[in-house]
């Protein structure tokens, strides 16, 4: 049946082209105003404070420790709110029964979906920027030296749009009121576990934004202190996250109904480009290696200029032999002085004593699987200016205040540094030419052994004795620190320390030598060190 009507003049079609930019701005304003993320910002900020902020500021006030610790933590803290809000907003049309009404509007579906995602992401980034401002402001206030590492913050910032895109896509694909919490759980565990799968420095899983460096090393005080923070891994992670974001958002535009053929083809091309970028990033992380400074280097992304050491003016202690540290460690200079000053006073001016001791970077070496050899807490010989002998001090890779169980205190730190005194004394007195200390042996003549033990005893001031007792330092014999025991017996298998029994004569002579006034002891050593090393002095000849 046909319905006839009166003849109607064809209505003129008015030009309806609007300026897309202005319309997009208005649409974004609406979406910003009515976005679920606004209500979840307190959740994100609360989780950030409880988890990331408290952990980060509990770290020593060093930029590298705090910012590297922040990257993965912040992302995990933002997952519930960002993914939840994005999934909720993605499923909004279907949940609210608006698919018919919005589906017949002139603007492509992709356009309004991107507006929703952009608004969700915008709020998430604003909240993240606020959190970062507080954390970085606090660190800037407390840190002695250096500046913020921008790459970890950048990776986390780029991670938020990716999280929002994934959440939004899940919400769009499975619109239901249960989608948002399920998406949060899935993404949270996916992100949390992705970094756990990383094995070794060539693992593809290092592309996970949860990692700010080598998985086996983690944030370390030495990293990015002596050498520039390598952007290789962050670049790969940013590439992966941008690729993932583009691929996921573009994939939303592929189904029929998202827009015209041109738009859907563009979406398909963008999806392919995004996947290619993400895939390339994953491949590149597979070619990575751990460099000696504890950072991940990716050959294809590596800039040789990044290998140059960072220039700095050291902070020095006024000890008999100057001890200088990187200014980032300025807070630990007093502890180092407490631990080493007595021994350095005994050795200053003796033949073979170093002219100065300067802090050097920790050396990292990737072993099998997840094992990394970290060369921290030692002294080694380096040639200083004009051929004068200098020593490089590598501080322990753990600093007081870093989260650990049991708690690592300043006293523990002092004891660990003090343990470097016996090998140093041993080296100067015995005159060995080994470059690395800690493996010399008390194998010389009895008089030499007595002098070494006497100096070790003398270098233990009342303060150090108190600290050592409080720290429960392992001792194998009265007044014989464990490092000396290791020297005398070599490092035994299994880590068990051997019992050292010193000959009675040696012990008595050592006690007598230690009891001398410091000036007398020093004057005697200056005059008799060569003879002592040559074995021409007996125990009885010791003062």
């Amino acid at each position: 049946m046909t319905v006839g009507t009166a003849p109607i003049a064809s209505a003129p079609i008015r030009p309806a082209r609007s300026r897309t930019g202005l319309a997009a701005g208005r649409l974004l304003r609406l979406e910003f105003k009515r976005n679920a993320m606004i209500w979840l910002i307190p959740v994100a900020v609360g989780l950030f404070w409880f988890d990331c902020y408290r952990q980060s500021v509990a770290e020593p006030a060093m930029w590298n420790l705090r910012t590297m610790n922040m990257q993965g933590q912040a992302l995990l803290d933002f997952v519930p709110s960002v993914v939840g809000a994005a999934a909720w907003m993605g499923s909004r049309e279907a949940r609210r029964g608006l698919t018919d009404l919005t589906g017949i509007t002139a603007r492509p579906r992709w356009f309004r979906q991107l507006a929703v995602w952009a608004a969700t992401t915008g709020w998430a980034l604003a909240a993240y920027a606020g959190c970062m401002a507080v954390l970085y402001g606090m660190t800037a206030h407390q840190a002695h030296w250096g500046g913020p590492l921008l790459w970890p913050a950048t990776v986390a910032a780029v991670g938020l749009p990716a999280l929002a895109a994934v959440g939004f896509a899940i919400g769009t694909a499975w619109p239901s009121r249960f989608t948002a919490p399920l998406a949060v759980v899935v993404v949270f565990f996916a992100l949390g576990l992705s970094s756990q799968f990383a094995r070794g420095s060539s693992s593809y899983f290092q592309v996970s934004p949860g990692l700010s460096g080598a998985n086996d090393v983690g944030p370390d005080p030495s990293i990015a202190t002596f050498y520039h923070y390598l952007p290789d891994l962050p670049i790969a992670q940013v590439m992966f996250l941008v690729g993932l974001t583009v691929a996921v958002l573009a994939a939303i535009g592929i189904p029929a109904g998202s827009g015209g053929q041109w738009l859907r083809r563009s979406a398909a091309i963008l999806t392919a480009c995004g996947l290619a970028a993400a895939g390339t990033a994953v491949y590149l992380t597979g070619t990575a290696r751990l460099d000696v400074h504890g950072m991940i280097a990716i050959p294809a992304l590596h800039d040789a200029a990044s290998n140059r050491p960072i220039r700095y003016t050291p902070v020095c202690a006024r000890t008999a032999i100057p001890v200088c540290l990187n200014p980032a460690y300025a807070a630990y200079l007093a502890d180092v002085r407490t631990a080493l000053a007595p021994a350095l006073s005994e050795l200053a001016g003796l033949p073979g004593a170093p002219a100065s001791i300067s802090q050097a970077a920790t050396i990292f070496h990737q072993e099998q699987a997840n094992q990394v050899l970290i060369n921290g807490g030692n002294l080694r010989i380096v040639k200083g200016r004009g051929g004068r002998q200098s020593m490089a001090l590598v501080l322990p890779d753990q600093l007081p205040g870093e989260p650990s169980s049991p708690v690592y205190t300043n006293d523990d730190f002092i004891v660990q540094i003090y343990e470097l005194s016996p090998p140093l004394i041993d080296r100067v007195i015995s005159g060995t030419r080994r470059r690395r200390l800690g493996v010399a042996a008390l194998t010389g003549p009895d008089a030499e052994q007595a002098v070494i033990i006497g100096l070790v005893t003398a270098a233990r001031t009342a303060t150090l004795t108190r600290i050592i007792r409080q720290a429960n330092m392992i001792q194998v014999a009265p007044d014989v620190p464990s490092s000396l025991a290791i020297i005398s017996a070599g490092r035994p298998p299994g880590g068990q320390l051997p019992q050292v029994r010193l000959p009675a004569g040696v012990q008595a002579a050592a006690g007598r030598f230690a009891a001398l006034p410091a000036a007398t002891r020093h004057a005697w050593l200056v005059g008799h060190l060569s003879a002592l090393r040559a074995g021409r002095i007996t125990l009885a000849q010791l003062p």
Partner: protein
Amino acid sequence: MNVEITDLTRRFGRAVAVAGVSLQAGPGVFGLLGPNGAGKTTLLRTMATVITPTSGTVRLLDRDPAQYGPRREIRRRLGYLPQNLGYYPNFTVAEFVEYFALLKEVPSARVPRAVAAAIERVELGDRARSKLKSLSGGMLRRAGIAQAIVNEPQLLLLDEPTAGLDPEQRVSFRSLLRDLGTSATVVVSTHLVEDVGAACTEVMLMADGKLVFAGTPAELTAKGTDHGVGDAPLERGYSAALAEARS
């Protein structure tokens, strides 16, 4: 012609919702009557480009909605109020209407004025800043009508637009329909025959997916003379036409 439908059939699985409907319509107000399940909503959704026909041809505003470009042009000039209006509860009336104005590609510079005008036309000016979740059912319906007319559509499709409106608002709404019908094609699907009698220039009656009557309200009323059941003349015409179709 704003609407040219030829032999339109729409199936959902084995069920035939619309069976071989043909119609042409220019500017004016068209009432679409029929019992539950007659196919009114399916016909309206097809005309609104929500769903595509299983067979037959549809031309709207002299364009083929099967192609993306023309369909987009049609949608710019289309207003649609579905039977079950979904809405975002936290949007205000003004935001809801503005949202659809933007999606319908109303030129940006004209959006604020168009939104204000649409809201005024449905007499919600004093509630423009109220959130939708705070509105009554009738007010929500008016907000739905406002979004449908914000782009000054040339083809306006309204599915049960007066459901929930009080008598005073219905009278006002009929006036609005007549006004809109002077320049656009307005198709109103309704159960309320008095709305049709008061506002429509043409009436179409559907039963079992087919168009069983088309004519003026006066012609439908005439069918009820001495036949049919109902309190009002148009109701009697409606029941008589239905009975005739079924027999």
